[in-house]
């Protein structure tokens, strides 16, 4: 079976200006969403605070839960009905320094008083203090930045500096757009999202490596062809592989998104959108950057 017939010649490079404009437009829209939504929806890992996930042994609505918590003096809680699962709710309790512990206990006590102690199954309790939240925030930003730069440096070392630069630009593009999508779909940023972002970085650079590897190989084979033609040929030759690998990876993260459960849903969502951006950017962001700097790297190319 073949999805992409051999000898396919799509003029990817020819469309690069359209693609770059589209990316810039997407980034602008993403930036606008971030500003309009007032920045990220930080989960407790980064903002501090508490979450309590409970399951009731009887039918309950979010309104019931809210009423039960009204008198418990736990501040402005938000209650999320974990739809699809029977009577399961996620209660978010905002940060009160030094009070995280007693807040969750008070909330659970209030629920037990209302619904009966044997009807309340406390599935999960998480509390993060403000200092830990701040630390994790800094570490997360550093990790993502560091990973992106590392990838660029690795590719620079293995190929040429323009490939490294192209990869790094593509990675920033992917991470930024994934974050925008998370905001648009109201996902909270937490530690698992950072794990997803780093995975996207790894996955996206994966594609870039394959295309770059082929570009290098074709450059050696054919010294005289213009770089644009070589890039086009290389993308076309690897297109079948790109689609297959992205396809299988995308398949499994979609399965995770639907069946993996509420704890890793945000993580799976980030991967689902991130893998799409990652594949797109390898073709339309990383390669045009290489082409843009053709003059600069031309000499070294001839030597190679």
């Amino acid at each position: 079976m073949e999805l992409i017939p051999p000898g396919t010649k799509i003029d990817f490079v020819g469309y690069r200006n359209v693609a770059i404009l589209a990316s810039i437009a997407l980034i602008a829209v993403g930036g606008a969403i971030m500003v309009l939504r007032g920045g990220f929806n930080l989960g407790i890992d980064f903002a501090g605070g508490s979450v309590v996930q409970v399951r009731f042994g009887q039918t309950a609505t979010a309104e019931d839960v809210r009423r039960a918590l009204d008198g418990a003096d736990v501040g402005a809680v938000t209650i999320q009905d974990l739809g699809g699962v029977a009577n399961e709710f996620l209660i978010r309790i905002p940060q009160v320094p030094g009070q995280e512990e007693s807040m969750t206990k008070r909330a659970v006590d209030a629920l037990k008083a209302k619904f009966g102690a044997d009807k309340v199954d406390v599935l999960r309790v998480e509390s993060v203090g403000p200092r830990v939240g701040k630390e994790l925030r800094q570490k997360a930003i550093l990790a993502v930045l560091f990973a992106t730069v590392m990838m660029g440096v690795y590719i620079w070392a293995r190929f040429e500096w323009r490939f490294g630069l192209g990869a790094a630009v593509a990675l920033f593009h992917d991470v930024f757009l994934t974050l925008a999508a998370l905001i648009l779909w109201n996902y909270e940023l937490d530690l698992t999202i950072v794990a997803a972002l780093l995975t996207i970085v790894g996955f996206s650079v994966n594609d870039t490596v394959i295309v770059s590897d082929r570009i290098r190989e074709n450059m050696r084979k054919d010294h005289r062809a213009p770089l644009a033609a070589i890039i086009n040929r290389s993308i076309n030759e690897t297109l079948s592989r790109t689609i297959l690998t992205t396809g299988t990876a995308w398949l499994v993260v979609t399965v995770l998104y639907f069946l993996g459960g509420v704890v890793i849903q945000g993580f799976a969502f980030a991967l689902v959108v991130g893998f799409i951006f990652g594949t797109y950017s390898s073709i339309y962001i990383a390669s045009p950057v290489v082409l843009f700097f053709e003059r600069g790297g031309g000499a070294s190319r001839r030597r190679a």
Partner: protein
Amino acid sequence: MYRILLVLGLTVVAVIFLLPSLLGESSAGWGFLPNRKVHLGLDLQGGTHLVMTVEADKAVENALELMVDEMRGELRKANVRPKSIERVAGPALQVVVPTEQSDPLSQVLKDRFPNLEVKGSQTVGQELTVQLVFYKAEVQQMKESAIEQSLETIRNRIDQFGVAEPIIQRQGDREILIQLPGIQDPQRAKDLIGRTAVLQFKLVREGANPEEYRDSKKLPPPGTQILWDAKKDEFGNRRRGSPYVVESRTLMTGDVLTEARVRPGELPNSRIVSLDFNARGARLFEEITGANVQRRLAIILDDTIYSAPVIREKIGGGRAIIEGNFTADEAKDLAIVLRAGALPAPVTVAEERTVGPSLGKDSIRQGMISFALAGSLVVLFMVVYYKFAGFLADMALIFNVAYLLAALIALDATLTLPGIAGIVLTMGMAVDANVLINERIREELRLGKTPRAAIDAGYERALPAILDSNITTFLSGVILFQFGSGPIKGFAVTLCIGLITSVFTAVVGTRVVYDYLLSRRRLQTVSV
């Protein structure tokens, strides 16, 4: 030839590590199998992950507080009459003496308090005010030992509480990481760990009416303080009960305790906690009780009054009891904290992650379903697309998952929910190597090469791309491992191991089959 030996050898090792987990209890008698199973993270088996911050500054303040009495005693011996000695913010010890006594004061400071340094002094009229602090190195050491001692005390408490395989270790500058797998009542464990457990004995002031101080508007008489006892609410939580007026002076503390035990009380189904004192404590307790017959002695734990019995007679023998409306668990926990001793400084919860056993089971189930479905889809897709070569890739995938799980067991790594997600993701990405190889073989065949030449070239040409692309992903996994904690680390570990095993099974494992087919000259066409 070496390839087939390598694959066979690794497979045997993998099976040996996997068998105990697959067979469950029935493998117990097989002595040659390693006694290891997949180690489940707290998010899968349920349990509590706590990070406690030791308020080490408080330990320094407490030490200064103790210096107040000591300073008073030493100054009296040297005939220095201070106007006041108190602990002030900073923290520092502030001593005010008449100016003519400044020389004897500095003499006492030099001879008796070598660990204090003068931070500042000023003379106003006839009074000299001196502020004293501990030397920096002293403070550093005090904080350090407060953290070490807290760690030790918490470890003792948890050991006595009885948790299977707890993890208690220092983390960073002044934090303690505690992991309690499979715990049924996380709140109880948290209370037990977080209790400072400073036991004090103080006398109740006679003739004062505590009810006057209930709304805390009126100041207590000089030399006394207001402390409260606790009442239980409907959930068994202790809430503030009634006020007592007690003398501020602490007659005795819990550091003289040698043993604390739960005993049945006089009423049916009631419990008391009995305390044994060491020789010094026994003598002290005898003196205190002898001198205060008919007065009430308050037994105070962490500034809450547990009981305040009337002293009927002098009590010798170094024994005391604490009465109270204890449940069995409360009495047991009280005895544990008294036995393990007080924390040198209060601890606060910086981070808590508790997963109940039912959520852990749900997560395992959801992870398994995702794994099975995602795996089947990938396997099906590969065999439809590449036929025989796809079947080979599928075999590689199955071996890959087996190696991956065996490696997790062998390395004693922890499987978490994101870790399961990592295995699922590995399946989706692992086929990449075989896709690359197969696409290459197709290309080479199109150029008109023989099967043997096409296969050789396919593997050889695809290898650099496979290595580069996996190394970059591996690097991001390593960065993630550095960054993450607990569940996230679990993801990074499965991702990284999965990359290694997948490259091996895809590049070396599938090649073995082609080698075999080519050596028998059976291969006239390549099914790819």
